């Protein structure tokens, strides 16, 4: 197991380097000159040139990339072009909000999506199943800004139960977390339903029924355990995506997460922030994948990562 983890960790280095190189080239290929954006729309050419020199953007691209990588090796992500603050600090202030939102939404998705999916599988073909499927379809297809605005309208403006925007306490977390959970919840529910349905038809379930095991125990011991792997995969992917920042939800709720930091940085062509941010996001995704892989072994004892 340990060697597996170590191997996977070792592999994430080239992956991360690939991300850095890809982001670097995409950023520099994108039209839009950071120096001009920094200088403002009505700056004259001399100021723009001076700023370009100041930012080191007049150097050849390979040199810029080499510089970036050598700084990266010293864990220095550089400084924001605009605010001059270290990228590390910018990210450190935004990450907690993102992690908090991602975990909360995954909890909601799991806590509702799993029982919903199981229920739909058990009541397969009934009205319950039908309405459950419709709900899941709506949640998968409804854009999150729409759900978010709807929740704000109902729970903040009309009922006044929650603040409309901002972060801080648990009060602030609920609406954005529910909004972000919507899509994952529906995915989890649908995945759980189909996996459970498949497992429910297996011989060993019939055997379990035959030996007089209660329906609830069958569900938990046999059905859910065996249905868990694909569900975990879906949840892992969703969680990884949420860690990358839920731009839309963050914008709607004025949530100070990484997603919006990145999007604003892209608009401002604040290269160091975009690069550092995407690198962190990629590393987050890699670690979530690793954790999911490890938990496979936990849920399915047949899976062993020896060698």
């Amino acid at each position: 197991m340990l060697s597996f983890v170590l191997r996977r960790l070792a592999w994430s280095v080239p992956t991360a380097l690939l991300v850095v190189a890809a982001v670097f080239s995409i950023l520099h290929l994108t039209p839009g000159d950071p120096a001009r954006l920094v200088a403002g729309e009505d700056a004259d050419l001399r100021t723009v040139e001076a700023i370009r020199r100041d930012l080191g953007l007049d150097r050849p691209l390979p040199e810029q990339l080499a510089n970036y990588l050598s700084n990266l090796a010293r864990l220095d992500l550089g400084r924001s072009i605009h605010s001059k603050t270290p990228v590390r600090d910018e990210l450190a202030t935004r990450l907690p909000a993102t992690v908090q939102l991602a975990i909360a939404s995954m909890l909601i998705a799991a806590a509702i999506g799993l029982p919903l999916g199981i229920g739909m599988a058990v009541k397969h073909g009934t009205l319950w199943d039908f309405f459950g499927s419709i709900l899941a379809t709506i949640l998968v297809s409804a854009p999150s800004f729409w759900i978010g605005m709807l929740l704000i309208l109902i729970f903040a403006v009309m009922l006044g139960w929650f603040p409309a925007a901002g972060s801080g306490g648990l009060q602030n977390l609920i609406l954005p977390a529910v909004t972000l959970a919507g899509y994952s919840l529906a995915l989890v529910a649908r995945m759980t339903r189909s996996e459970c349905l498949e497992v429910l038809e297996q011989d060993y379930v019939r055997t379990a029924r035959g030996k007089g095991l209660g329906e609830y125990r069958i569900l938990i011991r046999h059905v859910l355990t065996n249905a868990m792997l694909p569900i975990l995969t879906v949840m892992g992917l969703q969680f990884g995506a949420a860690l990358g920042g839920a731009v839309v939800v963050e914008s709607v709720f004025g949530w100070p997460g990484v997603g919006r930091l990145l999007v604003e940085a892209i608009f401002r062509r604040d290269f160091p922030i975009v690069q550092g941010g995407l690198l962190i996001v990629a590393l987050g995704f890699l670690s979530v994948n690793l954790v999911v892989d490890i938990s496979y072994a936990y849920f399915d004892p047949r899976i062993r990562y020896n060698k």
Partner: protein
Amino acid sequence: MSYYHVISKKISLRKYFVLVGVAAVIMLLAGCQASTPVPAPAVQPPAAASPAPPTTAPAATATSAPTAVPPGGTLTIAVTFDPDTLDAPNITSPGPEQMAMVIYDRLTELGADLTARPGLAESWTASSNGSVWTFRLRRGVQFHDGQLVDADAVKFNIDRIIDDIKPVKRKAFFAKIKSARVVDSNTLEITTDGAFGSLPYLLATAAASIISPKAIRELGDGLARKPVGTGPFVFQEWVSGERVVLKRNDRYWGGAPKLDGIIYRNVPEASTRVALLETGQADIAQHLPPSEMKRLAANPQIQIVKVPSLEMRDIRFNMLDKRFSDLRVRQAMNRAINVPEIVDKILAGAGTYTGAPVPPSIFGAIKSDKNRYDPALAKKLLADAGYPNGFKATLWGAKGTTAGLNEMLEAVQAQWLAVGIDVTLDLREVAAFQALATKGPEEAESTGKQLLSLGLSARYPDPDSHLYAQYHSSQFSPKGNNRGFYKNARVDDLLDQGGRETDPAKRAAIYREVQEILIDEVPGVFLYTSELVFGYRSNVKNAILLPTQHLLLAGASK
């Protein structure tokens, strides 16, 4: 298959809930950590408005303010963007600028009537040739860090904004300032490159804010996040991505402000800003979407405040393009568009049509109906110019930077099509558009520069600031902002004169003539001046919105 039932004696669902439980603990920890530094709004909005949510950490403000006088409340403003820096001359967007305006003071200040008034300078005089300006400083003013504002401090700031070696981002603003000299501890002399009539207006811009030299020296780049000025409000806290908190400067030279403090909350989504305003969680919401205007206007707890901005929306012709070099074509394209109708129907009235190139709040601005809507005449002009069946062209623009902008351009496109001009809209993300729009004359043809949708703002409310960079032939892009390569010797001459002139009456006459020429020659379609639309709670008083998008808050209360 068959050995499936052998596995897993333990209940996996339990394991699952253990994981969930661990995750929940982590989240709660994260939540606690994040919520500790929250300075709660000191005063809740009136309960009648809506059941406002409970404040999260009511104790946080207790440590800071020795509030003796009856509290004026904390004003919460929902803004559109998190600032990138609060180091005034490095700010390039109106969002952080408006924060700089209340944290810092300047030598001169813009009043509600947009004239330059005394600020840190009590008075000033210009030499007879208009190039040496003497400013007498107010005595005894202190920076928030206790340092005294004297001529040395001001000179330090002027030297910084005109420095070539480490240029500030707004350096281009100050190109005409040559040097600053300390005459005595409260007298400063500024020398300009030739006569420069609008210096007092330039010095009232956010970029010319006077910053504590001690803070500049000691904080370096850190100044961006820890501004130290002399203004009515003192910087307290900046929670990245979320809010900037200021508190009252009790020692403000102009008298302590009524408000306890200001919270700028970063809310990028317009509908959410509306929700905050409706629930009273924000006292002022910036930039309301046109679609919500009617509904909000019907709400007695909300007042809608509209002010024409300094942004002129226009469509610029590339004068080097053979078709657009023909005056008749340019006139036809002007005559084909019904601007008042577009403003009314698409922008919900959030624009001012004057038919002239200078925003109406700027002194010397004129109105004209010389190019008003007349589609029949447009067709005739096109036929006269040799295009009886119209032509095809491409318009470059930035995508949806303000509400209703894309729809506005689509309406323009439709009205052009009605007279036979088939224009393709090529709308791009802002930075990508900038890269195209600032192409110089040599590249203009190869890149296909034809029509540009622009919304350029004057740096400060002065016709020189607005017209020179856009229409003087020395300012062809990429150097300046004359992006359509307009060239007229008389206009150049007048703009040069106007820049030197210090007598306001003579300047007004000069700029009137410039505008009349531009209206005759139509180097662009002068669409409208965008209107700033802010929402205030009805109990907010004396928060004056200026066309510069800044709020005068020293006298505000709620």
